């Protein structure tokens, strides 16, 4: 039976559409105002592209995202595999760990990290001063819940007991089993977690700004202090990056059952 779209559904979808689209369109128009005397121009984007700090901070944030993804996967793939294969009783502890980052949000985590590594114990300067060490350590924690859940769902979907036994009875070593049997089977889950992590790290401001690191989001904030049109342009660029990450997530999720878009947190 085909029914016509109901009046109230149209109304709500329209209201939602307006609320969500107006700020984006307005930001775009705002960013085009940078030209002299009320003509529209792309000069804000030109300024941004020719700003070396833009590229430098963007590169730093991308690097941090890739490092976070790499460390998360190296830590969590074997853990999730082992939990599913041998140690199901450890599962509650790991699940507790994946909930904890919500109870200890970034604003509190940064208080704790600064206090612990720069007070309780005196961590070496290279750890405190390099974003690649300090920030990545924190970002891996933020990424835990998303990467773990993605991997957990991936491992649930395949029969790892049979796969592992089959591989080993054919004489494969642990490394071969992991690299050539398990990893290819959870590639989609790992990629899904990776795209979410990318979105989180590219937008993370709280920890970066409070521990005084100059990443892409803190750069946007700094630009806003003197050049509002450029800041609007950068906000749209940031929106585009989030879109790209989510489309990536949608794309890898295709064909592996439901895509599970999860909310992350750059707020």
């Amino acid at each position: 039976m085909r029914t016509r779209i109901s009046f109230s559904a149209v109304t709500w979808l329209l209201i939602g559409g307006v609320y969500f689209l107006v700020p984006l369109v307005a930001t775009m128009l705002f960013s085009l105002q940078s030209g002299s005397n009320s003509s529209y121009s792309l000069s804000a984007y030109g300024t941004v592209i020719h700003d070396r700090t833009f590229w430098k901070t963007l590169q730093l944030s991308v690097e941090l995202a890739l490092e976070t993804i790499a460390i998360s996967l190296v830590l969590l793939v074997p853990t999730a595999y082992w939990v599913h294969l041998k140690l199901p009783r450890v599962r509650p502890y790991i699940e507790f760990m994946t909930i904890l980052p919500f109870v200890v949000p970034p604003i509190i985590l940064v208080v704790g990290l600064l206090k612990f590594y720069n007070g309780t114990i005196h961590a070496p300067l290279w750890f405190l001063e390099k974003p690649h060490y300090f920030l990545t350590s924190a970002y891996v924690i933020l990424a835990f819940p998303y990467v773990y859940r993605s991997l957990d769902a991936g491992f649930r979907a395949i029969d790892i007991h049979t796969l592992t036994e089959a591989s080993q009875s054919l004489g494969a070593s642990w490394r071969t089993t992991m690299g050539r049997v398990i990893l290819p089977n959870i590639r989609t889950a790992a990629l899904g977690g990776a795209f979410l992590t990318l979105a989180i790290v590219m937008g993370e401001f709280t920890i970066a700004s409070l521990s005084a690191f100059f990443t892409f989001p803190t750069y946007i904030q700094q630009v806003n202090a003197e050049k509002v049109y450029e800041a609007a342009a950068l906000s749209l660029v940031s929106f585009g990056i989030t879109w790209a990450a989510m489309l990536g997530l949608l794309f890898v999720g295709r064909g592996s059952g439901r895509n599970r878009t999860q909310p992350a947190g750059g707020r």
Partner: protein
Amino acid sequence: MPFFAYATAFLLLPSGVVLVGAFKSDKGKFTFDNLSTVVHTPEYVRAFKTSIEISLVTAIIGGTLGLLLAYAAVRNGTPRWIRPLLTTFSGVAANFAGIPLAFAFIATLGFTGIVTKLLNDHLGVNLYRHGFTLFSFWGVALVYLYFQIPLMILVIAPAIDGLRTEWREASSNLGASSFQYWRHIGFPVLLPSVLGATILLFGNSFAAYATASQLGGVSLVPIIIGQNIGGDVLSNPHLSQALAFGMIIVIATSMVLYTLVQRRASKWMK
């Protein structure tokens, strides 16, 4: 396992330091003074009140609108392409927060925002002369809804899918009206999921820092903690740990509630 070592080093120990620090004096002795200072300083009490209020308001409004939108998208008669569009966009918007979100709204509804100017130049309505400002409780709430509504849509969509068409058909075969269906079947089945999702939204807003830090105008607990780290306002590091401890209590309580409600909600989910 390396996982637990990592989590201990960068999550458990730092969180532990905050919890313990909340009960320590400058000399390292155990004390309730920090918590007592928080409870007896009107500024901090007000910050907690405002934080809880803004989280409640955006959770309830965001939850309601998210539910209505999610339902509108899956209803019989709504074109099929609406739903994937809505969930994908929600995935983006729920993640699009913090600095760029704040600037997008400033470009829209700030003093010189596009919409502010449009209303002023063409309709003669000056928002800011009528008492509206983006840099206020309701302004921040309006911005928060931009990530709260999408989060609701993402969380509640599976529960709406759980409403089986058979139930609706059975009830209308038995002569029930649409209102009766919702009153006796639809609403009671959805209620635990809706409550759970709303609690999640509450925590989401309560922990938010970046967006509000750029808008200003409201003194929320995370903002005060942020200023304290920056070092300009307070000098006592234990005070920010006491504030953080207070935040953890609020969030942990809401997480416990969430778990309890979630247990009820899973009853109807396949």
